[in-house]
């Protein structure tokens, strides 16, 4: 079997900066900033009161009419995934059964795979609280009442709102994707890992098209609690949210929770060319790694991203001298920025200081799993446009974070672009995208 090549032919993104790759790209180019005071819930006594929110967002606008009822059983993470999938397919020019009014599907369902990375989906506290508070005796939770009657206050499909594979499952059902379907749950690295794995579905001829990436929202009580306890959130800039998250900047002081997702349409290169598809990029390299010291979750880690990047370059058959641009993660958490910058240096040597790089976390907040999906979409767009957008809130580098971030939009001749991410828990993933010669 000749090795099949993987084209990126569609991009879908939902971020606090907008919906759809064109909107988000325009916002990134213009250096717009999307972190604001949290209004989705009353931030009350939470020490961090800012986030990158999706306002007026519902998946109802992104699903076929006959599927709108199902939105009720989607956690927010699922809603994001479903919306992003719709945008990605629309961008690709492929027609699935999920795109209403576009005509007959042009994708063979059996050859369409799906791999949407996800995080731990948090139960909605107010929904669960309503039920739990029916089962209280003497101020304490009463198991006997709960078992007899309390639990029936939860909708029968309650569990299905929170299973992480439901991001993929809803997408497969809406779009008729009957090929391989997976759900990577490696925190913020999920998107890179999902895309890297999905390329193998195409290379081994198990699918012709795969929709892959990740989506997540931790903008909720438990997310604010857990990230706060991990000391990752910025708590000193509630009065200046737009400038609060400062990846790699000397004044970086923690991150803010953003919500969003990104999915790519990966397609066998021959299929893409035969249908005359717009090819943003070729996915030519993938690498993954992990940091065995990351069991200590308070010790900042980049998940041995340096090794993941080296593995990705090796699988692409290129060296550091071939890398023209970087889409970094950059949470804005000081220890993590340092670890990430060190990882890029480990992989690229001195070149890590000069290769034009971008991080958009300052504009969106940390979108966790979703971030890695968006990074990949942005990397593909950078290649297609030969532009590296600005890194907002970056003025001068923190010591140890000397990389080539810039406050302005740059025209850059890009043949290869590298993007990578890592997560609390210590996994990392990286991908190499290559300009597709006409």
């Amino acid at each position, binding site marked *: *079997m000749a090795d099949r090549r993987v084209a990126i032919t569609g991009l879908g993104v939902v971020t606090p900066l907008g919906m759809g790759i064109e909107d988000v790209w325009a916002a990134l180019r213009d250096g717009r900033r999307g972190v604001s005071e949290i209004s989705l819930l*009353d931030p*009350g*006594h939470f020490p961090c009161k800012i986030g990158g929110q999706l306002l007026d967002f519902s998946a109802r606008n992104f699903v076929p009419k006959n599927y709108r009822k199902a939105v009720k*059983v989607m956690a927010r993470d699922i809603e994001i995934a479903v919306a992003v999938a719709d945008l990605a397919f629309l961008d690709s020019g492929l027609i699935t059964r999920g795109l209403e009014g576009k005509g007959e599907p042009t994708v063979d369902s*059996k050859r369409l795979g799906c791999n949407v990375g996800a*995080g731990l989906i948090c139960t909605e*506290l*107010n929904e669960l*609280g309503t039920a*739990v*508070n029916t089962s209280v005796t003497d101020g304490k939770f009463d*198991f006997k*009442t*709960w*078992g*007899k009657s309390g*639990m029936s206050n*939860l909708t029968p*499909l*309650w*569990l*299905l709102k929170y*299973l*992480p*594979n*439901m991001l*993929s*499952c809803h997408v497969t*059902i809406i779009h*008729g*994707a*009957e090929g*391989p379907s*997976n*759900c990577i749950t*490696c*925190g913020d690295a999920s998107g890179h890992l999902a895309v890297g*794995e999905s390329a193998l579905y195409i290379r*081994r001829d*198990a699918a012709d098209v795969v929709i892959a990436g990740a989506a997540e929202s931790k903008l909720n009580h438990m997310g*604010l*609690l*857990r990230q706060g*306890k991990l000391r990752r959130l910025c708590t000193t800039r509630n009065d200046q949210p737009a400038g609060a998250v400062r990846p790699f900047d000397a004044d970086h002081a923690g991150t803010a929770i953003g919500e969003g997702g990104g999915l790519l349409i990966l397609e066998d290169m021959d299929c893409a060319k035969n249908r005359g598809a717009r090819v943003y990029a070729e996915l030519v390299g*993938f690498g*993954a*790694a*992990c940091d*065995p010291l*990351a*069991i200590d*979750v*308070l010790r900042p880690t980049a998940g*041995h991203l340096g090794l993941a990047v080296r*593995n990705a370059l090796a*699988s692409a058959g290129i060296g550091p001298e071939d890398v023209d641009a970087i889409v970094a993660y950059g949470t804005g958490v000081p220890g993590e920025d340092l670890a990430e910058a060190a990882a890029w240096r480990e992989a690229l040597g001195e070149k890590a200081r000069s290769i034009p790089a971008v991080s958009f976390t300052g504009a969106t907040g940390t979108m966790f799993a979703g971030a890695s999906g968006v990074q990949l979409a942005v990397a593909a767009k950078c290649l297609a446009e030969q532009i590296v957008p600005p890194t907002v809130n970056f003025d001068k580098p923190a010591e140890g974070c000397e990389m080539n971030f810039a406050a302005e939009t740059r025209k850059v001749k890009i043949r290869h672009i590298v993007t990578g991410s890592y997560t609390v*828990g*210590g*996994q990392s993933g990286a991908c190499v995208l290559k300009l597709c010669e006409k």
Partner: protein
Amino acid sequence: MNKRRVVITGMGSVNPLAHSAEETWAALLRGDLAPSPIELFDASTFPTTFAAQVKNFDFAARVPSAEKHVHAGRHCQFALAAAVEAWNQSALGAYADLDHQRLGVYLGSGEGSIDFENFVSLLIEAWDGRQVDTNVWPDLAFERMDLYREVEQESNMVLAHLAAEFNVQGPAFNVLTACAASTQAIGEAVMQLRHGFVDTVITGGAHSMIHPFGLTGFNRLTALSVRNDDIPTSSRPFDLTRDGFVIGEGASILILETREQAEARGAKILAEIIGYGASADAFRITDQDPEGDGAATSMRAALADADVQPEQIDYISAHGTGTKQNDQVETRAMKAVFGEYAPKVPISSVKSMLGHLIAATGATELITCVLALRDQILPPTANLHTPDPDCDLDYVPNQPRKADVNICMSNSFGFGGQNNTIILTAGK
């Protein structure tokens, strides 16, 4: 492309029947039944009052470096114990040339158990009658909720523990495709090996949903058996009287490596994985495709990948959950794939004895396939006394059976429609 061949050189398991792979096998051949009344919390008024629980598990005795894993939750402890067992069997510890940067981990591990007591007491104390009062809840939560118990709920944390235990530096993946997760993890781990990203992978799954909200979730879906009056025989795959699955917990870990490496280092090869298939029903989140088309696609993909004909399959380890729908659909799917040969291929569901270990179930069942290949004996489907006209294949009812077993197929189907199939041989 010349395929790199992938073999199994180590196995370990902690599950409701036993705390090692070998003891599990003995229990299955004896016909032990795991379901018992829930002891982990008061489930006496729940629609389902029982589960298949891991009991008398001694973490410190099983994992010499237990103190390194003080924050490991229940399913993570199971995973570590199973991994130590598998690692020891593989003898990788004595392999001086092991490249830790080409050692990966690929799990189908579930989310960690919730800190139930603190979680609900906060929901009660900070309730303003309509919603959680965020002028109260954060203060209580930051004070009482433990960082580690919270973070360890992320399903990628078991990876972190295994990476720390075995100095894994290569690719690390976790997937959570519900009941198919660990079969999918093993299958994709095989692909990582074949594509040359790694030489050795620690793979499998771990899960425990036997907590109040896990039981609540499945009870609300009416997916569980409610046979509270006959708990030991409550798991009845393919039997007419089946009324749902029995929730279980546990972990099973396998060591996979390239055949080349295993042979070069003189490792004992337990089995070879020759085929993997995956598919999605793309039907409904609540139901399987009634025709079993998705399940059949997965089996066909695995057969094609293994380059074997349906007639060459000597045994199928079924998903066989004991829900009305699954067993009927699965039977239909097997008939579609195996045609005239379907009634001749022995099939069993060890969930009849073990219960359903959710994300950990596929890895556990794959281990039983490896042991069936070794001992040339098939584990039975227990509690199968009343035939269902819709389930009319050979399910090896109630008694283990001697058989010539050269090639096995193991199936797992996840809630939401993700299907996975693995095919393996003794690898001689």
